[in-house]
């Protein structure tokens, strides 16, 4: 009886305090819309995503079509086949259309980052929430392992593992259907998909470490809250508490860190490909295009500009959106 009375009083009070009922989502949306830079970044990202998704429709040329004697054409030149198509960004060292490669690369670079971030968030949530909630030896073992991996400097480790994997194609047993699926998704040849899958595996293999620590921290503090105690008193199972109380409450910091993480992943993938230890030619990514543009930059200085700018823009946009989300979801939140 007491509970009903108290909830009634609260309702009456809140109705007086707030003239309109505003849901949490509306509040968050309103705060996010006010963040001008984040909005601009979001729109820019949407445009890039649409271009990447419609790559086969938008691209005037096949990104892997080599045209002999048509190399390093200046931007804006008409194609030599007389079809009236234009090389908006010119062509690269073996006559492939640069603009078409850039937009196919957008598809690959963005999808690699998105998939890797999704996988590492899922693993991070499972490991972090389990370790944080169960505590004791499970927590100790899991966190010592994570800390151990975080002790070793990340970039050298990433580089060496990708060097080993890229040199040895059979190192990871990748099922045929997965390769074909990735190849279909990215519109590349199925044998080139192996590299892409390896890069995704490497990136997510390290990505979950950070998010598992984050989720564990949140869960540790939530575990002591009264609502957790209450549901435990009501006889809720551990799994129920984790899935209905812990994870939803950990959503806000998780979304923010995942968005900011995308910015880092785009740069890391580009760096690996730039150093020749990631996805390699003929599969176009912004990183490997920039890498080959570097060799010719003194004669054709526009090439590095065209392949490098998208990396910077995407990373900047994800940073701004992540920052906007942080302010919108929880102004007190610190990451």
């Amino acid at each position, binding site marked *: 009886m007491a509970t009903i009375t108290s909830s009634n009083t609260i309702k009456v009070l809140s109705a007086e305090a707030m003239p309109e009922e505003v849901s949490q989502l509306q509040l968050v949306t309103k705060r996010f819309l006010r963040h001008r830079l984040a909005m601009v970044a979001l729109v820019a990202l949407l445009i890039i995503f649409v271009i990447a998704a419609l790559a086969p429709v938008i691209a005037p040329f096949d990104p892997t079509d080599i045209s002999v004697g048509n190399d390093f054409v200046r931007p804006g030149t008409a194609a030599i086949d007389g079809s009236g198509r234009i090389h908006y960004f010119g062509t690269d060292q073996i006559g492939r259309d640069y603009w078409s490669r850039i937009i196919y690369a957008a598809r690959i670079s963005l999808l690699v980052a998105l998939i890797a971030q999704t996988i590492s968030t899922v693993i991070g949530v499972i490991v972090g929430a389990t370790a944080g909630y169960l505590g004791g030896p499970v927590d100790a073992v899991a966190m010592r392992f994570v800390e151990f991996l975080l002790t070793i*400097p990340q970039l050298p480790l990433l580089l060496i593992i990708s060097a080993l994997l890229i040199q040895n194609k059979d190192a990871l047993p990748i099922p045929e259907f997965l390769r074909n699926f990735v190849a279909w998704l990215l519109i590349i040849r199925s044998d080139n998909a192996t590299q892409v899958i390896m890069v995704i595996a490497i990136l997510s293999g390290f990505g979950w470490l950070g998010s598992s620590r984050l989720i564990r921290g949140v869960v540790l503090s939530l575990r002591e809250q009264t609502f957790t105690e209450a549901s435990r008193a009501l006889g809720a199972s551990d799994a129920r508490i984790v899935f209905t109380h812990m994870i939803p409450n950990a959503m806000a910091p998780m979304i923010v860190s995942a968005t900011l993480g995308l910015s880092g992943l785009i740069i890391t993938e580009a760096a690996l490909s730039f*150093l020749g230890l990631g996805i390699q030619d003929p599969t176009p990514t912004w990183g490997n295009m*920039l890498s080959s543009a570097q060799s010719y930059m003194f004669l054709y*200085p526009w090439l*590095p500009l065209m392949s*490098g700018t998208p990396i910077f823009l995407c990373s*900047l946009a994800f940073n701004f959106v992540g920052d906007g989300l942080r302010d919108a979801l929880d102004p007190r939140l610190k990451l």
Partner: protein
Amino acid sequence: MFNYLVRRFVQMVIVLFFSAIASYTLMSLAPGGPLSFLAQAQIQINQEEIARIRAFFELDLNLPVRFSRWLIGLPRGPIEIGGQSFFGDLIVGCRMPIEQTVRDVNTGKMWTEVIGCVPGQDVTLNDLKDRRTSNGVAFGDFGTSWVLLRDRPVSLLIESRLPYTLQLMITSLTLAILIGVPIGAYSAVRQYSKFDYFVTVLAFFGSSMPTFFFALLMILVFSLIFKDLGWFWLPTGNAESARDFFIPLLGNVTAGSLLDKVLHMIMPMSVLIMVNVAGWVRFIRGSMLEVLRQDYVRTARAKGLEERVVIIKHALRNALIPFVTLVVFSLPAAFGGAIITETVFNWPGMGRLYFDALGRSDYPVAMAFLLITATLTVIATLISDLLYTVVDPRIRLH
């Protein structure tokens, strides 16, 4: 405190032991290596020579034995107690393994498998006596390089590259602190001012900018465009030039002179400064904002202290406490260099060395690099924890 240090030290040793195992396992799984080079070169050699090369690279020993010899330089031969030797006949490897090509019926894949040892070709502890043995990585002997500086000690390679990295990293870290701290602090003091807004946006740009792209942009502007315009331009790669060259405003630059070295350092240094400042400014700003809200700052103001004194002596000094630990973590970076920046600018430092070692399968060099950086990172973690108690006496370590 003493107990704490002992516990931390034991933890450090365990972590380093595991990372040694991890990196050694990684390397031994690695394709490439000395024998595959022979295969690529299509050199016809007989079994005896293969066995000799395998012995040279210790590939004829079992993995645990090889690892232990690599890590601590043991076993060097049979165990000798009072002139008596024990376990001399213990088999620790095989000179000529019997290989068999296996074919999977379902997938049609082929690979070779070691199924045994040619009789009489076992390696025993007695055979190890005559071998060249390293003193062990744990005691600072990283063995010999395979490719980059063939058959010479890895430490020689590191010695030749380390000065360049230290020179680059120490100057850029120092300058980054000198630039980043005032900017971050000032932008916190003037929160929401135009300056603050500008700095925040610039920090966002800086931290979103991939180092390799920023490096290429600098080369594009300062080496290509400036040279074309006949302005003051900067050399693009290496630590010094091989020939004298002419730069407008400065005149002739002698190869190898101090001016030459400084000119070569400007661009890689600027890239590293940009990266660090962009990361640090927001951190310092945040920590300064927090301190400025504290009661003791209000007290200092209420006492009638000059604003300058309040900001610098009372606020900034406290705001820098967490920053100190952040800077300590740059210690491993000062050794490891910046792999990407050094590679783009062809800077002959440690980062570049690591990248070359990976590209050319020179695993002893790469392993030495990984282990030293891991060790330094672990030490840096300990130092930063200890520094916390020094700069902030409220924190106690248990």
